[in-house]
């Protein structure tokens, strides 16, 4: 089908592609390199050192970073798990539930956190918690994260389910499997890569969120992004570059995992 697509390539486009990748990666690489700088100043290079990584764990700010890391990771884990469960359930209804009246409206509702600018969602959720008199803190961050993680979990999960024909379950039920058995033994295992990819993306989205978290967090409760933002406002220090590099590396690993898992094909 792809009859010699090469023939229609434009010579300048290769250069622009490399430029694009250079633009995307150069800043991240520079920060990564400078996080290994053995200098108090962020401007001059004084040789390779791991001192700022040590500083993150035992330095003067380490207590702050540790509690922020605990909050970030525990919130991301819980929010991504709940969001994945909610999204899987919704996907079953949307992809295996036939046509129904509220289908388009429901899809609109699920996509809402992606379509609306994040700062608007942040304002809305802050106002919501304020109205019902919910004290801002760990719980408010967690609830907000569960909500905005749902669409990110939903998209890979529903895409996966769409790729699995209904006939697999039908065949199982023709052989006297119950609906529950067909779900647990046939659909769920085939869905697993999609569910896992959705979970990982939701996890990353939660871990990386700054704007909504910054609005709904209480005084004294920090996540890694809000802690980093607070420090950066006073100037970029080398320990911030070290912690940023670690977070970058972590995100890259998770995204890579999610990428490969979502490509596992169990329908063959």
């Amino acid at each position: 089908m792809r009859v010699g697509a090469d023939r229609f390539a434009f010579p300048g486009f290769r250069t622009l592609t490399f430029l694009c990748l250079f633009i995307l990666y150069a800043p991240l690489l520079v920060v990564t390199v400078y996080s290994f700088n053995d200098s108090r100043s962020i401007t001059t290079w004084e040789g390779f050192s791991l001192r700022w990584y040590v500083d993150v764990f035992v330095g003067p700010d380490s207590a702050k970073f540790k509690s922020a890391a605990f909050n970030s990771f525990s919130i991301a884990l819980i929010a991504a798990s709940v969001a994945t469960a909610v999204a899987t359930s919704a996907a079953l209804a949307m992809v295996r539930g036939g046509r129904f009246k509220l289908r388009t409206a429901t899809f609109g509702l699920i996509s809402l956190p992606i379509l609306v600018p994040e700062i608007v969602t942040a304002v809305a959720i802050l106002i919501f918690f304020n109205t019902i008199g919910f004290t801002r803190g760990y719980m408010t961050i967690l609830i907000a994260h569960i909500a905005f993680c749902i669409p990110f979990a939903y998209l890979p999960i529903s895409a996966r389910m769409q790729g699995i024909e209904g006939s697999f379950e039908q065949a199982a039920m023709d052989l006297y499997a119950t609906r529950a058995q067909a779900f647990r033994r046939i659909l769920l295992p085939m869905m697993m890569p999609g569910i896992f990819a959705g979970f990982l993306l939701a996890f990353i989205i939660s871990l990386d969120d700054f704007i909504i978290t910054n609005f709904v967090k209480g005084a004294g409760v920090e996540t890694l992004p809000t802690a980093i933002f607070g420090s950066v406002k006073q100037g970029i220090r080398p320990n911030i570059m070290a912690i940023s590099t670690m977070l970058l590396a972590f995100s890259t690993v998770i995204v890579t995992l999610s990428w490969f898992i979502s490509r596992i094909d169990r329908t063959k």
Partner: protein
Amino acid sequence: MAGGAASGGDATSDAYAPARGWLLLPAWLVLGLVVLVPVFLMLVYSFLTKEFRGGVIWEFSLAAYDQFFIDRGLFGDDPPRIEWAYIQIFWRSIWQAGVATLLCLIIGFPTAYFIATRPAQQRNIWVFLITIPYWVNLLIRTVSMRFILRDQGPLNDFLQWVGVIGEPLTIINTNLGVQIGLFYSYLPFMVLPLYAAIERYNFALSEAAADLYAPRHKILTRVVLPAVKPGLIAGCILVFVPSLGSFLAPDLLGGARNFMIGSLIDEQFKGSAGNWPFGAAASMILLTLVLLVLMVLARQQARAARGAG
């Protein structure tokens, strides 16, 4: 096809139809309660009276919208005139988001096209390379940009070393800084949907045009571009909408004098202004703008999809 895309694709079976109310209940509850209801509350708040240092008094008031649109002078007793200050912030945000979208298109389209014309095996690697920055922490990406663009940063060092400039350029805390930041933040958001569209494009069409002696640039503008228009529109939405409400780029790269809508809203809730109804009103106006853009583009997209299909 357009209707299918807008509603998340068609259902593949109706096996779970009897249980669908129960299955959808958690999603309705969470998103309804934590996103939809709050948006309505935000609308309500924009018509309430502000309380000193944050919060609201539950009394109807048009003060927020009045402050946004009408200038009554310093003591509030001048004849009312149009207040331009906030409209200007909105206008500048729209302008900067538009320029960012255009820049992303200029770099993003050739990239997506190039990737789509690679052999299948290579394509995955290229897409993967674009996917990583797509998901990586936006705060950290913006901080890295601030690090690069500083007066004594690597970019200025490099330009001085090459001899292009004598004195370091000041980019941070200027509109240019914000512009670069927006472009950098959302570039991958342009490439991925464009790639998805070009990858599905049938190059036999280009082949046919070439057989009829169309020059290559004509094939691109007259055959390829119309065929991938839905992807083009999707990419523009994904760059324009978050740019418009962006907070990190103007805050970390623009500073106090280069306000965008996001900074204006943030200041009402987190900053010194502490005027919640005004913040809610500004958010409502932003939301209205975004919904308008989405509606216009969705209609365009439906038309483009009908034309292609």
